[in-house]
């Protein structure tokens, strides 16, 4: 370890260790700008250390000097002198050609609440306010149970069954819904604080918390004060946290609690986690469960949806689609057992552990493995005799790997066995039989959209798809195909074909980049021009605050391409919708719609955005929209249902939509600026705000029954420039010149020895 005595080696080691710590040990990861800042501080500290006295400094310089001067080190010298300009040049390139990132949002996570709020005509003093229900000690359990029902009917969609902010709608929102199990949320707040946040939601936040994109609605019109207190009691009961008390802590000044959103805590967990995984390998081996133990867990975690009797009729069930499983029939969709057979214990265990994608059933990994096996035992006990015989496993033919031939054969078989009848020609769940399908309980069911494998109930891998094809999804219209393909291995070919329709889930982004193009932009959504533009994917979720609410939105995402020219901006939107529908009172269908939402005071750098659900009375939004009844139009909205369409001359947008095989493609074009000062404008290089809303009229979606996204950014990219190709060589050349200067200095002995 003699080399460690070299000051130079020490300095390098210190820098490397510091970098590794800053980069990998801090969770969540800190932004690069922060890492750079920390590293600069460490560098200064290291330089101070090595230059503390002249011996030390000489020791530090020695290896550098010898590299520069000694003839024996010539190859190293040349290598270093070539490498440094290249690295610096590359760095210059990455900076000049940097991708645009959304502006960092610094905001008060827990801003100071107002002294008092008005709630349905009454004034509540937040400061010092306690949960009035806690005085009624005899009924605490009853209030918590009632709070749980309120939660499952209103909050679960975003905040999730596990209270971890990962509900089925969470993916559509940025910032994500609050995670109540995190020690940084309700555990450090008073109940009155929660009361204020629930009652007034995102729109009620003070200025210091802006820009705030919270989609949290104001629940004051939907829930009574008592309801809110009950749900608060449920939150603390379910997470095991205690609310903070007024006596013990005066509310700290908000400035003390301001933190960067991405800021995190230093932790060594990253070291411990992999170790822990090695020490405790997951044992998924089947265990005999104890139904009595399972009952205890069931009543805590499952009953609200699946019901006390296991019949799928819990208090949360009416809002859900697909409906929670009715355990009394012993009929299950996702199985590895043959058609007509009950599932194996492992099948049930897997569904409990991994959840059902695309439904409100989450992955219950928070429940211990033993308890999950206990749940399996309890759930089976609802079905009387269905589980008396051990289920027969479905036999799958030998796996066929995906290949061009296999996919071609799969397509041929897909057509021969007429998968399109339900799933549609392109697999988007738009087949002619799709609207009529019901399950064995008489509930309408939608065939899977095969281009969204991440939503397959039993998983999207080839093996999982092949198993579903072989066994069918019992209780649904999906039949078993194992005896109904030409050769058994066709099951694998069809599975490979289904996989080829969409290999992976799209990445969702937060910035929609509009590219600069020269000349005219085609109106036709099917024009080849659009295929060349990179899409940005945005996720959509249901609207659940204004009646009628939409718990099961039909449209869960939209892919957007944006381009602009000197005069125009154009948006190309692609989304799946199983039916083309128009307003038809007889058929109970409505117009299909898509809307882009902008703040009405647009074109300004965003600091204050209107509330994402069409704004409010003081902060309106502008909608660029298309409906299957009326085509492209524009409107101003002051809240949901308060929409004023612009009249003929005021509408500047034009566009066109095409519908084929369960998919819409739409182009909306608009002048980038108009003379009117208050109008929508699209300047280059600024972070503008945009949000999306969609309606599937064929599924009964209209007005407030819609899906929507939170606010995202729209940025018109500066036209492509030569900068990324000019700057790096210049920087590299300058570096070479600097190197030569240092080299000459060293040769002349200016560094002294």
């Amino acid at each position, binding site marked *: 370890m003699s080399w460690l005595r070299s000051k130079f080696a020490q300095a390098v080691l210190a820098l490397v260790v510091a970098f590794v710590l800053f980069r990998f040990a801090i969770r969540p990861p800190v932004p690069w700008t922060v890492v750079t800042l920390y590293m600069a501080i460490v560098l200064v500290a290291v330089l101070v250390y090595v230059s503390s006295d002249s011996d030390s400094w000489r020791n530090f310089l020695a290896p550098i000097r010898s590299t520069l001067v000694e003839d024996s080190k010539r190859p190293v010298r040349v290598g270093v002198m070539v490498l440094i300009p290249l690295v610096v040049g590359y760095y210059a390139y990455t900076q000049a050609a940097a991708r645009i990132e959304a502006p960092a949002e610094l905001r008060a996570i827990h801003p100071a609440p107002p002294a008092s709020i008005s709630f349905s005509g009454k004034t509540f003093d937040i400061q010092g306010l306690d949960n009035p229900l806690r005085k009624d000690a005899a009924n605490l359990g009853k209030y918590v149970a009632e709070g749980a029902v309120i939660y499952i009917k209103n909050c679960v969609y975003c905040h999730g069954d596990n209270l971890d902010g990962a509900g089925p709608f969470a993916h559509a929102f940025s910032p994500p819904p609050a995670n109540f199990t995190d020690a940084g949320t309700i555990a450090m707040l008073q109940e009155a604080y929660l009361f204020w946040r629930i009652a007034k939601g995102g729109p009620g936040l003070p200025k210091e918390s802006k820009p705030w994109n919270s989609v949290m609605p104001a629940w004051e019109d939907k829930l009574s004060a008592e309801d809110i207190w009950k749900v608060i009691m449920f939150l603390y009961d379910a997470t095991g946290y205690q609310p903070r008390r007024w006596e013990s802590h005066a509310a700290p000044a908000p400035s003390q609690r301001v933190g960067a959103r991405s800021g995190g805590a230093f932790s060594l967990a990253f070291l411990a986690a992999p170790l822990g995984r090695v020490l405790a390998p997951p044992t998924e081996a089947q265990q005999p469960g104890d139904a009595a133990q399972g009952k205890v867990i069931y009543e805590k975690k499952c009953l609200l949806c699946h019901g006390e009797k296991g019949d799928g009729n819990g208090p949360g069930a009416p809002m859900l689609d697909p409906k929670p499983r009715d355990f009394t029939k012993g009929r299950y969709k996702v199985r590895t057992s043959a058609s007509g057979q009950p599932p194996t214990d492992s099948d049930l265990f897997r569904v409990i552990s991994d959840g059902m994608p695309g439904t409100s059933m989450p992955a219950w990994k928070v429940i211990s493995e033993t308890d999950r096996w206990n749940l399996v035992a309890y759930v089976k006990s609802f079905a009387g005799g269905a589980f008396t015989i051990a289920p027969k496993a479905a036999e799958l033919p030998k796996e066929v790997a995906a290949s061009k031939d296999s996919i071609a054969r799969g397509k041929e078989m897909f057509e021969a066995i007429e998968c399109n009848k*339900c799933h549609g020609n392109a697999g988007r769940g738009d087949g002619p039989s799709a609207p009529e*399908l019901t399950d064995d309980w008489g509930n309408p069911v939608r065939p899977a959209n095969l281009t969204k494998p991440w939503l397959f109930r039993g998983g999207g891998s080839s093996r999982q798809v092949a198993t579903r094809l072989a066994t069918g999804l019992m209780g649904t219209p999906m039949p078993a195909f194992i005896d109904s393909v030409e050769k058994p291995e066709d099951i694998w070919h069809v599975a490979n074909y289904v996989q080829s329709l969409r290999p992976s889930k799209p990445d969702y982004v937060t910035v929609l980049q509009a590219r600069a193009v020269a000349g005219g932009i085609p109106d036709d959504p099917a024009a080849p021009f659009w295929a060349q533009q990179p899409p940005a994917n945005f996720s959509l979720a249901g609207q659940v605050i204004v009646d009628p609410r939409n718990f099961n939105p039909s449209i869960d995402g939209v892919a957007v391409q944006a381009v602009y020219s000197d005069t125009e901006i154009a948006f190309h939107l692609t989304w799946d919708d199983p039916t083309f529908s128009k307003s038809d009172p007889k058929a109970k269908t409505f117009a299909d719609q898509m809307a882009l939402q902008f703040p009405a005071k647009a074109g300004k750098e965003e600091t204050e955005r209107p509330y994402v659900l069409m704004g409010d009375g003081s902060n309106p939004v502008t909608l660029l929209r298309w409906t299957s009844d009326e085509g492209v139009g524009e409107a101003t909205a002051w809240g949901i249902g308060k929409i004023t369409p612009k009249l003929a001359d005021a509408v500047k947008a034009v566009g066109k939509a095409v519908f084929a095989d369960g998919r819409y493609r739409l182009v909306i074009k608009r002048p980038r600026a108009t003379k009117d000062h208050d109008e929508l404008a699209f300047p280059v290089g600024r972070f503008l705000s945009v949000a999306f809303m969609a309606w599937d009229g064929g599924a009964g979606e209209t007005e407030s029954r819609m899906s929507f996204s939170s606010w995202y950014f729209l940025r018109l990219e500066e036209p492509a420039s030569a900068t990324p190709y000019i700057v790096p060589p210049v920087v590299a050349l300058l570096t070479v010149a600097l190197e030569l200067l240092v080299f000459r200095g060293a040769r002349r002995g200016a560094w002294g020895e």
Partner: protein
Amino acid sequence: MLKWVSVLCAGVLAAALIAGASTLVAAQDAGSIVGEVKFSGTPPAPKVTKVNKDNQVCGDEKRSEEVIVGANKGLQNAVVSLVGAKGPAPKPARKPVLDQKGCVFAPHVLVVPAGADVDILNSDGILHNIHTVSTANPSLNKAQPKFKKVMTEKFDKPETIQLRCDVHSWMAGWLVVQAHPQYALSDASGAFKLDNVPPGKHKVEVWHETLGKMTQEVEVKAGAPSKVTFELGKK
């Protein structure tokens, strides 16, 4: 000794009585029940579904076969059975066949003995799926694509099973798995006949898919048919 003989005799007699309820009854000793199932009231106009797929095979319209009323208000497709009859159902002379033709189940109601193989045909040359809504037997949902002309299935437990095809939502049928030999299906004029009924008082039950169940007491005499008329209507 005598006691044993009498016990044995009594046993034989009892066995004979039980067997008497089945086909073992000699023809001259048995009676029969003939009758009619009638629709009471004004028969409803059949529901008509507009066909929106496979029109070349299925046609453009499908009339519901739920309630078929013939001449003299005779109700077709009602299942008449003797309550409490014993014994296994006889093996049918021909394998029971359920066809899917013109996008309907033919016959609309099929009565089969428990445990018999049933041939399910696809005469249409398009995809059907045979989907049973059953509880006693395993719930069946198998695809039958165009190239799968015949599928053979067995239904072991007596049950009245609803049949559907999810591809064609109007397709509906019934499979009645017999518990014993005494079953009859009413024909287009509503007529039915139960043969080989042992003499005595019997309860006769009629079941119809939408009009429900009804029972009547019938006195059967050897060698002569007893008459019974059921009137079913919307409740």
